[in-house]
């Protein structure tokens, strides 16, 4: 099969993402990205220091049709050309998910196209298959697929997870996750505490640049032996994270300076906080990967933009003999192209489409790749 014929056969899929504060519409043909239009309500959340679900949901409704039109225009196609509509069904903010899901159902119904309600987390992995340059390697289904023994580390404002991906369309396993705050949430809350603004990731990253990451020894959650156990007898939280204690420790440190009437060493605290987060994320992710035979690790989620995370993860993956893949930041943050990419894989694998009656599932488990 030539590249041209496989490209012609590859499914043309439109993907819709509204699980948080980005309204995303992306269009892919197989693993080739044709459009990735994102409208963010981030500015509207700045004064709150975090995403307000109701504000995000309002923004999705207003942004949806313009975002859709722009994506179709960029791709140079019309909706009647697509083979399927894919949409994030969960996990995410319920009210936000329902806007995208209902809009997707409307498109599927009106254009008489199959609908695929997909898992947001798995879509973050699916984006790793996209190659805007159009490089094409045929897999069993005629589409490029993930290498064997792939893992994914997803770090964002809503998620902190490590996954093992046997097959993007039929076998995804959750190895570990945060038991409280997501890492990105910890960045936002700490940035608020330090008066650094929102979103917290870039703000802390910038403030940390001039700070000493060893100035404060902040806790690495769930690293005590009773939580971690051993390879033979793993503890309950061996591959899990917790960031709520870290956030409290930062608050205490800030308080001590304020009570003493001394200036808060913002740069040192930011750098030490960032080091604690990045250290525990990468240490646990690389160990989990090693213990599950993962040889290729993909990084996804908005926190993938953090320089220190990329640096330390690269270092530790290299030391463990794991190949690290990091998509461009515009594809790490929430977007519609990742949903379309997973949708294309599902279509190519012959997975049955969803009914028009599927619900939005705010806590959809990662094993439910499509609904």
């Amino acid at each position, binding site marked *: 099969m030539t590249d041209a014929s496989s490209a012609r056969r590859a499914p043309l899929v439109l993907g819709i993402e509204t699980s948080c504060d980005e309204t995303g519409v992306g269009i892919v043909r197989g693993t080739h990205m044709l459009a990735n239009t994102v409208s963010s309500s981030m500015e509207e959340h700045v004064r709150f220091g975090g995403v307000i679900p*109701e504000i995000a949901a309002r923004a999705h409704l207003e942004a949806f049709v313009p975002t859709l039109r722009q994506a179709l225009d960029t791709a140079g196609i019309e909706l009647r050309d697509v083979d399927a509509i894919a949409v994030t069904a969960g996990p995410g903010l319920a009210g936000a998910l329902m806007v995208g899901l209902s809009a997707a159902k409307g498109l*599927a119904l009106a254009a008489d196209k199959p609908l695929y309600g997909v898992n947001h987390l798995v879509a973050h992995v699916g984006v790793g298959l996209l190659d805007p340059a159009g490089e094409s390697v045929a897999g069993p289904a005629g589409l490029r697929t993930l290498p064997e023994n792939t893992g994914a580390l997803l770090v964002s404002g809503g998620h902190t997870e490590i996954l093992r991906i046997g097959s993007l369309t039929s076998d995804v396993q959750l190895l570990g996750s945060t038991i409280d705050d997501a890492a990105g949430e910890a960045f936002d809350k700490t940035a608020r505490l330090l008066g650094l603004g929102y979103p917290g990731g870039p703000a802390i990253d910038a403030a940390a640049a001039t700070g000493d990451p060893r100035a404060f020894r902040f806790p690495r959650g769930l690293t005590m032996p009773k939580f971690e156990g051993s390879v033979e007898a793993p503890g309950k939280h061996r591959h899990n994270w917790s960031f709520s204690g870290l956030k409290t420790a930062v608050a205490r440190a800030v308080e001590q300076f304020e009570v003493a009437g001394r200036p808060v060493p913002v740069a040192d605290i930011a750098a030490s906080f960032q080091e604690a987060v990045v250290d525990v994320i990468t240490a646990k992710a690389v160990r989990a990967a090693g213990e599950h035979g993962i040889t290729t690790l993909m990084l996804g989620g908005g926190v993938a933009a953090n320089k220190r995370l990329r640096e330390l993860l690269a270092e530790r993956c290299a030391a463990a003999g794991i190949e690290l893949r990091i998509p461009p930041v515009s594809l790490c943050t929430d977007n519609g192209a990742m949903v379309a990419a997973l949708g294309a894989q599902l279509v190519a694998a012959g997975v049955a489409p969803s009914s028009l009656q599927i619900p939005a599932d705010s806590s959809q488990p990662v094993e439910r790749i499509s609904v």
Partner: protein
Amino acid sequence: MTNYDGGVILAIDSSAGASVAVLDDGQVRAQWRTAVTTTHAEVLAEAVAQTMREAEVTGAGLRGVVVGVGPGPFTGLRVGLALAHSLAEVWGVPLHGVCSLDSLAQRAVAQPAESSASAEGEFLAASDARRREVYWARYRADAQGFAELLDGPQVSAAAELPDLPVVGVGASLYPQVLTARSALESQWLPDAVELGLLAQRELRRGGAPGSTGPSATPDTAGPAQPDITARSVLRDPLPLYLRDSDAKVPAQMRAKQAS
């Protein structure tokens, strides 16, 4: 059979329960409704598909989509609006918003005179706004027997409403302070049927109001021409939230913004 001779519209409301109707020149061809308030995202799209099949109409045969813009609980309201936006976009037909309370008022003025003492007087339509409040608006019947909006919609505590007879489920929620026009009418929920009727009438201004025959003049889908009432029932297809989001700026952020 697909209707191409004009006038067929699809109407959707998700401001309280959810409902769908296909209307052809003022006649209901098919309709669907549920009083359940928590399943709009699941049931509404399928209900549209089913209602259109029953009405034997396709998107190509529609003159427009009408959607209830509330007021109503936000999440459910957005489900109907998001769906309607997509449908109208793909079919390439106009999308019109109508205040969902207008449907209660229209049903009230369409009641036989003997069933209600004050059909020609002013009355209120009220729906559940939760949080011990109601969404409401004040209406009267116009000379053609259509509901005319006089005031609102607004959201307030039931005790703050004008002292007028009330239709709609708001009346049964606060019987101590609201006077239901009748027991039956105090159970009413907004519905797509009347939203569609009102919108069709507006779109047909210039033809015989309330005409049900196919001989009526073709739709003038432009801006409504001034007629008996100055105000058009057609609105932008955007939610009438009437309330801001509840989000409070955290103390840390307030301190920062003040400095």
